[in-house]
C-alpha cells in the first residue's frame, strides 16, 4: 500500500499521578509531563515495522490537538514516520469529531490502513477507531496484539475477554493497538535532529470541512472515593485471623 496513517494523541504521561483540581473544574495539567499516548506509540511502531517489511511506502502521523501537539508529532517523526499532519484544535475534540477529521485525511491521503491506539489514557474512551471504521464503512480490528499484512488483507489477533480472537479483514481498514502488539523503539539523538527537517503540515478542522458538535459535556470532576486505611498483619497466622474476622474464611 502507499500510505499508513497513524493517529497520535498528546496525553499526560502515564507515569504522572493525575490529580483533580480542588475546584472540580478538571484535572491538574499545568507543568505536567506530556507524551504520546502509549497505545498510539505502539500503533506507530507497528506501522514503522510494516514499512520496514515493505508493506507500505510511507507512514504519516496525524494528530488533532493544540499546537503543542507538534512536539509529539516530532517525536513520531524521530521514531521514523515520514510526514506529520496536525489539525489544530484548542478544545479536546471528541471521538466522533476525531473520526470525521481522520476520515477526511484518509480520503485525502488515500490511506490503505489506519493504525490507532485502542484508547487514550486520559479520556479512556476507546471509541475513535471504531467510529472511523463505521463512518468509512470499512473493517475494524480493535485491541490488536498481532498483525500480519498480506496483500489486500490483514490477519489480526485481538485481545478479548475470552482469550485471543483471530480475524481476517480486507483492506483498507482500521486497526487499534493493544499493549502487547510490540515494544516501541527508543528515539536516538541524530533521529531527533533529522526529524526537524521532515514535513509537518498544519490545518484546521474547518479546512477539512469538519464541524464539531453533539458533544458530551463534562462538568464536575471529583477524585475517586478513597478506600479506608487497612491493617498490616505480622504473619500468615495474623492474615488468616484477619480474614476470619471479616467473615471471609
Amino acid at each position, binding site marked *: 500500500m502507499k500510505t499508513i496513517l497513524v493517529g497520535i494523541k498528546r496525553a499526560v504521561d502515564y507515569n504522572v499521578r493525575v490529580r*483533580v483540581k480542588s475546584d472540580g473544574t478538571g484535572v491538574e495539567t499545568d507543568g505536567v509531563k506530556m507524551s504520546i499516548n502509549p497505545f498510539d506509540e505502539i500503533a506507530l511502531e507497528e506501522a514503522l515495522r510494516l514499512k520496514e517489511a515493505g508493506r507500505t511506502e510511507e507512514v504519516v502521523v496525524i494528530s488533532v490537538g493544540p499546537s503543542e501537539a507538534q512536539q509529539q508529532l516530532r517525536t513520531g517523526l524521530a521514531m521514523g514516520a515520514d510526514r506529520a499532519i496536525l489539525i489544530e484544535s484548542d478544545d479536546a475534540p471528541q471521538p466522533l469529531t476525531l473520526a470525521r477529521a481522520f476520515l477526511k485525511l484518509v480520503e485525502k491521503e488515500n490511506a490503505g490502513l489506519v493504525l490507532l491506539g485502542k484508547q487514550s489514557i486520559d479520556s479512556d474512551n*476507546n471509541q475513535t477507531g471504531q467510529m472511523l471504521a*463505521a463512518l468509512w464503512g470499512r*473493517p475494524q480490528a480493535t485491541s490488536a496484539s498481532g498483525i500480519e499484512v498480506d496483500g489486500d488483507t490483514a490477519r489480526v489477533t485481538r485481545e478479548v475477554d475470552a482469550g485471543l480472537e483471530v480475524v481476517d*479483514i480486507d483492506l483498507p481498514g482500521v486497526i487499534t493497538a493493544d499493549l502487547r502488539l510490540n515494544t516501541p523503539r527508543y528515539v536516538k539523538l541524530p533521529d531527533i535532529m533529522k526529524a526537524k527537517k521532515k514535513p509537518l503540515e498544519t490545518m484546521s478542522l474547518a479546512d477539512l470541512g469538519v464541524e464539531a458538535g453533539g458533544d*458530551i459535556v463534562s462538568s464536575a470532576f471529583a477524585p475517586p472515593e478513597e478506600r479506608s486505611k*487497612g491493617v*498490616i498483619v505480622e504473619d500468615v497466622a495474623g492474615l488468616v485471623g484477619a480474614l476470619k474476622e471479616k467473615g471471609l474464611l
Partner: protein
Amino acid sequence: MAKILIIAEHDGSTLNPSAAKSVACAADISDAEIDVLVLAADGESVASQAAEIAGVSRVLVANNAANEPALAVVHAPQVVAAASGYSHVFGPSTTWGKDLMPRVAALLSVNQISDIMAVLGSHEFRRPIYAGNAIVTVTAPAESVVVATVRTASYKSAGGGNSAAVESLELDVELPTHTRFVELQSGSSDRPDLQTAARVVSGGRALGSAEDFEIIYKLADKLGAGVGASRAAVDAGYVPNEMQVGQTGKIIAPELYVAIGISGAIQHLTGIKDAGTIVAINKDSEAPIFEVADIGLVADLFDAVPELEAKL
C-alpha cells in the same frame, strides 16, 4: 419516558452476566422501559435467559447465521436498525461491547458515553477517566439518542424470576463480508470466571515463571477463587492475556481480592477498586499496593503463600 435497548452479549448458548448488570444500570433511569436485543444464529435459549432478568419488558431476537461468531461490523448495522424509537442504547464495557457500541454510536451520528458507573439522570452519568484517577460527570445532548457502555463492576446484577415477552425481529439490513472470523484461542479453565468470581487471587511479576505461578493456582483452588494477574505477569508469559486485571485488562469487583507479588501500579489498581476486601502480600513494605490493601502482609511470597495455603 426512557425507552432503553440493551444489547446482550452471549456465546451462542449462554447469556453473559454483563447483561443483567446493564439492566441494573438502565433501571436506575427513572420511568424506564427496558428491552433486550439478542443477535444470534439461533437465539431462543439466550433469549429465554434474558427474559428472566427482573425489569425487562421485552426480549427481541434477531436470528441470522452471520451473527455468530460475533463480529462488531456485522452486529452494528442490525443494532442501528433495531434501535429506532429508543432513547437509549446500552451495551456492556466488555471487550465485545467496547468493540461494538462505538461503531453503533457513529452510525447514529452521536458520541458515546463509555463506562457508566452511576446514573444521575436520563442524560447525566458519572464515569471514570485517567485510569480511575478522576470521576467526571457527563451530560449527553438532550435531543439525541444516548449510546453508552456500562462499567459492569459498578453494578450488582438485576434479579431473576421475570418472564418477559420474547419476540422475534426481522432486520432487513445489508451485512458486510469484509471481516471474517478465523478462530478463538482460549485457555479452558474449570476455575471460577475472573469477571464474576466472588474471590480472586492474582499474581504479579514476582512469581518469576509460569512454573512458579502454580502456587497462585493452588491457593486459588483452596479458596474457590478465580485467578488474575498483573500486566507484567502476562507480558512475561507466565499466564495468558485474558487473566490481566486493570485499566487495559478486566475491571473486577470480587468480595475478596488477593494481590501477590504485585506492586500496585495505578493501572492495576483501577481494575480492583470496587473489590470488597483487598489483601496484599508483598516483600516491600513501601509498595503502593499497601495504600489500598485492607489487610497487608509484608513477606516473601514463596514462604507466605504455601504457608497460607496449608493453613486453609
